[in-house]
């Protein structure tokens, strides 16, 4: 990856980080806004090593956990796991076809919600069907659409 492309990637990630918290915390949009933080993590995980992806996921998750007093650590674990898994997909899946990009963002976001659901603890955990299958799938689809648009706009896809 060229230096310019690397810088562009980190600027994009920083922008998505800001957008996520402006929309979710600043404007209080909640689920109405896409999960830009997971999208940013999935974007960066395809371009960096496992260690860096895990560190970015850890940092992102910890910041989200600062606002979820009742389930501290659940976001950190979920985002770290997604970062590691995202980095490993580089070795497993070569190429950035449209189908792969859609599947990658969908699976990544769904995995994030699933791990969070597992880690959140019995007292806060909602039903699997509602939380993971229904809301998780909707959130994953939303992230996939936004992720594909971002990849297309910012030229992150090697195909583009």
């Amino acid at each position, binding site marked *: 990856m060229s230096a310019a492309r690397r810088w562009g990637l980190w600027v994009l990630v920083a922008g998505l980080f800001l957008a996520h*918290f*402006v929309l*979710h*915390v*600043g*404007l*209080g*949009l*909640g*689920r109405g806004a896409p999960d830009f933080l997971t999208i940013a993590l999935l974007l960066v995980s395809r371009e960096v090593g496992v260690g860096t992806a*895990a560190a970015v*996921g*850890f940092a992102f*998750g*910890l*910041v*989200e*956990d*600062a*606002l*979820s*007093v*009742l*389930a*501290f*650590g*659940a*976001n*950190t*674990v979920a*985002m*770290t*796991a997604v970062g*590691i898994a995202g980095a490993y997909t580089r070795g497993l899946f070569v190429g950035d076809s449209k189908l792969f990009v859609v599947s990658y963002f969908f699976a990544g976001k769904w995995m994030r*919600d699933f791990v*969070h659901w597992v*880690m*959140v*603890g019995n*007292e*806060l955990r*909602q*039903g699997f*069907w*509602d*939380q993971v299958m*229904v*809301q998780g799938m909707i959130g994953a689809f939303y992230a996939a659409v936004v992720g594909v648009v971002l990849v297309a706009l910012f030229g992150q896809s090697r195909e583009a």
Partner: protein
Amino acid sequence: MLLALSTPYFSQSAQQDVALTLQATVLRPFISTQERLAESRIRAQPIDRLQAQLDSMIEVSATRSVLADENRRLRELLGLSERAGPRLLPATVLRPGTPGSESMFLVDVGGDDGVREGAPVLSAHGLVGKIREVRPRSAVGMDWTYPDFRVSAMLADGSAFGIVENVRGAFREADRLMLNGTPYHETVPEGVLVVTSGLGGIYPRGIPVGTIAGTAEVQGQWLKSYWLRPAVEPGSVTHVLVETAADGADLSSLFPSDSVSLGEEGADRAPEP
């Protein structure tokens, strides 16, 4: 990954330190933005002018005006606050909107203002929840949708006592309140007001919790449980009052029967048949 897996097992104080540090640094601009937005909504027009306009514009505002709706809530809170005096502190509610924070909220008053841990949080219609963590200028609260929510309650006329608890629904918006442990021989008709009993020492007596909305279950021939229609829908609350006194006073005089309308805030969460 190991470090991430260890974070849920950090001590409570370590978790609070990390959360507080991040809230005061990285997240401060975003939290401030929400605070400023909330304040700007309140200060969009002088309250007196809005109050004067509200009566003449009620027909229009009842259906469409967010600003007038905000004003009505503030007037209700103002009325409650005036009746209660300095023991109730007005505060703006901020909701983080991030995963895992569904039952919690932030209020813009804290220890410097006299807020204490466990302090009840009220709206003009009744009980919202309680304060869980206190910081110098803000506090973290939990509303009644928190799974461990429990409050000792009684019928408004004092004829039966029980425990109100949160019952998880199939999905979050279907969470409901249930009055448990009332005597079997006591049949409570629908619509009867349930208020806090003051037992247990956390919530003062007389705060509306909800109204009876039907029988939930009968345990043998000893106890009955009832579904409640909540007095307050936490998601719609934008302004609250936090109690600063811990003298166990009876607050029932603050909620005259005509003010305990469950119209807008509590009507949406109807119990399952």
